């Protein structure tokens, strides 16, 4: 093959003297303009008397049809398809954000009114009507979730270690994986009934205690921890394990000192997501822990308040007048959301600190 170094123009097909590499294209900021135009169009349709939903839909329809057509006439079909798909993907994203934004807005706007020092420092003991707070429910949620985490994380992590490091692909690990998948699908009410039935065996009917709730939540949390930690451990390259073995390091030390630290950032994230999954559970706690107006720090004795159950109960039996109670329910929901958000922030911080050096 001879090498031709003389300058030449190459077409888009790369076959010598075709058209030049330059191509007409839409203005550089077409994407931004499209978004702005879509918003203006929607406002326009709204002004014409359409409802919000039809207005937005019509604006979207116009953009989806006009932009690709315009692009086809200027840039050709490949770029037109690119633009069409970009619009579709972006609008799917926007659509997905709608309920999220709506929920955030509703919870914040309804819950903000009760926020105040009292709301965080008072329980509901002897409160009728206005006033009172969720001090007792915050503690209940934190203590029960902590107990759940303390139970679930070791069991989940050890199970995942067995599956990845020891089970290879043997039959037992196949069964464990299957059962964990089944457990992932257990409805939370079933977990609650299970924990209640279990504690009735030991403490008699009518038993209520925070620990029973923690057991119910652990049933829900363990499979999530197992699956996410398993994925994280699988991501650790085998070469690192072999490097460690080749230095004369036994397997268990290799797992403790090489595999787990390498996967730590992911494990922390997985555990946080698992906590977020169970911290808002209501039904199992209603059955096992019950409802309470007062502070109870002992998870092994008696009823405890928790944020989700508190919110449920405040809506369910608000008393009279119902207003203050319903406000408190929103307040509890907002606090729950803030706790989950803080958890995520902490997890990000932890995984940043522990992420393998050099990959930051």
């Amino acid at each position, binding site marked *: 093959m001879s090498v031709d170094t003389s300058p030449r123009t190459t077409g888009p097909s790369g076959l010598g003297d075709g058209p030049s590499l330059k191509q007409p294209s839409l203005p550089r900021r077409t994407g931004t303009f499209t978004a702005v135009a879509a918003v203006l169009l929607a406002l326009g349709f709204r002004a014409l008397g359409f409802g919000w939903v039809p207005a937005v839909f019509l604006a979207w329809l116009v953009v989806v049809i006009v932009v690709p057509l315009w692009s086809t006439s200027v840039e050709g079909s490949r770029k037109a398809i690119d633009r069409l798909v970009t619009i579709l993907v972006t609008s799917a994203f926007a659509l997905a954000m709608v309920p999220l934004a709506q929920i955030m807005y509703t919870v914040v706007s309804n819950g903000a009114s009760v926020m105040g020092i009292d709301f965080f420092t008072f329980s509901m003991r002897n409160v009728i009507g206005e006033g009172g707070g969720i001090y007792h429910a915050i503690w209940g949620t934190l203590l029960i979730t902590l107990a759940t985490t303390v139970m679930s994380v070791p069991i989940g992590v050890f199970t995942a270690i067995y599956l990845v490091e020891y089970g290879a692909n043997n039959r037992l690990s196949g069964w464990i994986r299957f059962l964990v998948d089944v457990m992932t699908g257990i409805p939370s009410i079933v977990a609650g009934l299970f924990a209640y039935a279990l504690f009735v065996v030991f403490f008699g009917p009518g038993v209520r205690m925070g620990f029973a709730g923690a057991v119910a939540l652990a049933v829900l949390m363990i499979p999530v921890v197992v699956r996410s930690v398993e994925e994280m451990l699988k991501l650790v*390259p085998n070469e*690192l394990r072999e490097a460690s073995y080749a*230095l004369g390091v*036994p397997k268990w*030390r290799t797992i403790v000192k090489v595999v787990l*630290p390498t996967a730590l950032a992911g494990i922390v994230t997985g555990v946080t997501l698992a906590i977020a999954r169970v911290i808002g559970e209501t039904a199992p706690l209603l059955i096992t822990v019950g409802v309470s107006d007062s502070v109870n720090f002992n998870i092994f004795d008696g009823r405890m308040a928790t944020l989700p159950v508190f919110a449920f109960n405040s809506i369910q039996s608000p008393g009279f007048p119902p207003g203050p109670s319903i406000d408190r329910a929103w307040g509890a929901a907002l606090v729950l959301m803030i706790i989950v958000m803080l958890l995520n922030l902490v997890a990000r911080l932890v995984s940043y600190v522990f992420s393998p050096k*050099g*990959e930051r």
Partner: protein
Amino acid sequence: MAKSIDVSDLDIYYGDFLAVEGVTIPIRARSVTAFIGPSGCGKSTFLRSLNRMHEVIPGARVEGKVLIDGQDLYGADIDPVAVRRQIGMVFQRPNPFPTMSIYDNVLAGSKLNSKRMKKADADVIVERSLRASNLWVEVKDRLGKPGSSLSGGQQQRLCIARAVAVEPQVLLMDEPCSALDPISTSAIEDLIHELKEQYTIVIVTHNMQQAARVSEETAFFNLAGVGKPGRLVEVGQTTKIFSNPDEEATEAYIQGRFG
């Protein structure tokens, strides 16, 4: 410190798949032995069976005898972990521990085994190992940086430093230069020359010149045929193998007529 290895009639399996068959080879102490041969003929497999890394793979096993200074490597009472402490290994792809600094990577052998060491002793070992692997000058001012911040060639030399830091008696190297530039390669070859004063070295390489440059003995592996297991064709003094091999196949391979 160095030890000799005597392999007799070794068959190596992955599950039911016989990968390497009937290898008999003496490996002298304090010398460099090179393994050459086409891809897939079982050089890596055989190398890994010399420090019991082969059995790390599920289902993998060997049949036959490997004697290290007269001790049966696969004897019932032999602890593979102890074996690997004495027979170090450098892999084809550099694999420093990403969670550790350069300093800790060099000391990984003792750190991972939770051996306590005075800071002064540790410093001495780190400097000696990094000097041995020709890396000291390049990294001495950034020992606290992560091992993965180095270039590929530097990472490989870091892995060699890590392997020599535990003072093994034998060093196995599986194509240590295949991913490296010529300058790093020659640094590693210099290193091999220095190390063979103290260690028994076995190196797998695809580079004929490299085998000729660094080794005293050369072993040529080949597949017995398509779908058949790999086997040792011949082993002898490097000068002889490269100038006047006994087997026709060896000559053909070295002259680049196949493989």
